[in-house]
């Protein structure tokens, strides 16, 4: 699987309160949530984002609350992948569970700049920066996570067990 898009770049410790503020959590409708995605740190995000675009964060992306509304809002906004140096653990689980592709790469998080055109190949873990003509290596997924990815999220994984 591959995805290609333009990059929105953010810093360290992007918390789930800024990804989707709690004042909007009285609904879990993805279409409602996406309207407010990232608004407290980037009001332009939701106006500019196009299907396939990519978010690049730095350390500890998605820290804070366990709200699954955060990866749901990002996915609904059209973002096809989040790249970061590291992810907060609950956000990490939630993303795989709901089928939002995320990938860890220190090199990519450091070198990719806002607006770069980037292609992610999930099969070989290569992140190609088309704008800069560079390629970065991502960390491979553990086998267990691959099983969840193959089933497009935890719901289908559990379906087989229930």
């Amino acid at each position: 699987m591959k995805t290609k898009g333009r990059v929105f770049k953010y810093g360290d410790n992007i918390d789930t309160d800024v990804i989707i503020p709690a004042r909007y959590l009285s609904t879990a409708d993805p279409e409602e949530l996406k309207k407010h995605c990232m608004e407290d740190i980037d009001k332009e995000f939701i106006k500019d984002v196009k299907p396939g675009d990519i978010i690049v964060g730095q350390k500890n992306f998605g820290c804070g609350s366990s709200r699954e509304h955060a990866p749901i809002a990002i996915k609904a906004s059209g973002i096809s992948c989040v790249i970061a140096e590291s992810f907060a653990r609950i956000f990490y689980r939630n993303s795989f569970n709901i089928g939002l592709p995320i990938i860890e790469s220190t090199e990519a998080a450091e070198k990719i700049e806002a607006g770069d055109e980037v292609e992610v190949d999930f099969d070989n873990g290569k992140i190609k920066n088309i704008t800069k003509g560079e390629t970065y290596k991502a960390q491979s997924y553990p086998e267990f996570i691959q099983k969840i990815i193959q089933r497009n999220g935890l719901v289908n994984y559990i379906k087989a067990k229930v």
Partner: protein
Amino acid sequence: MGMTMTQKILAEHAGVKCVEPGQFIEAKLDMVLGNDITGPVAIKEFYKMGANKVFHKDKVALVPDHFTPNKDIKSADQCKYMREFAHSQGVTNYFEIGEMGIEHALLPEKGLVVAGDVVIGADSHTCTYGALGAFSTGVGSTDMAAGMATGESWFKVPSAIKLNLIGKPSKWVSGKDIILHIIGKIGVDGALYKSMEFVGDGIKNLTMDDRFTISNMAIEAGAKNGIFPVDELTKDYIKSHSNRAFKIYEADTDAFYDEEYTIDLSILRPTVSFPHIPENTRTIDQVGEVNLDQVVIGSCTNGRIDDLRAAAKVLKGKKVKKGLRAIIFPATQSIYLQAMEEGLIRIFIEAGAVVSTPTCGPCLGGHMGILAEGERCIATTNRNFLGRMGHVKSEVYLASPAVAAASAIAGKIYNPEKLEGGLR
């Protein structure tokens, strides 16, 4: 190689002799928790999974505590959806307004978590129960759904950081100051994906409520869980709240830790976390002049009886600074009642504070204490992220109940030690 306390609990619940850091396991769950924000999402996923019955009606807890008492029609709809699910499934541990409390204060109080348990909750502060010697961790709604459907959850076995607590904290230093100090030291991702295992002689000087506060904020250092060894105090607490059998796990003497820190509690100072990240800590001696509009005392972090007593000790016979809003919310109905019987509620009201029903409301900017543009609040809650408690241009400072109470009197961040000789 030996195992940590967390690894031992996980191994037993996965039905294996030993586990190693990084290993993926599927473990049996003793409790699955959700609230009015995360529960409704989980219930929808639960049905999508093809499930129609929760794995065990006594091992699911549903607590409408975030936007309750219902703050608007949408929140009321979410609560209604969860309530109807609880009733149709015969879920024993559904707690309606009137008997509820903030989930992480409520579950231990109701005896629903004991030492040796594995608990997941669709709320990041589920790590609170580490204080009881249980493995507990926050997950999202889909994990909660899977837990409700199967009674199991997948985990990556964490490695660990050892925190050796020594010495006795001084009068105005509480569990909150200890955990803020630790987060300031190791950072908000200092324990990312790992267990924080607390050990050492200093633990005997910490009350259960101190320990709950410390475990509660392990997530603020990125940790998967924060766990305490079980001592006499823990056993007494569990026995007086639960009839369930519990199991004590101890780390092997040759358990491996990625890092070890020694924290001398006797030299810690009251500590405040400045906006907009919990690791941005300063001691009370370094805070400078920070004027305040609001003080919040409560939450799953600091809404227990010890916390209210500490606040009352400071507020007794004093007045909240004119123009400042002080909001105090006991974490559960039973704590509320106890505070009333001890005369604490009278002290708060006479001081000019408002006392609220248990709710998570203000902590996450839900309701019952939202900040306007440019306003500043000191809170005993757990997060001071941008816009956390209201307007994106408001500020939240995190501190202990004693510091928050002293600040309510002074109208600025204030050292409770200085109030002992009268306000200067």
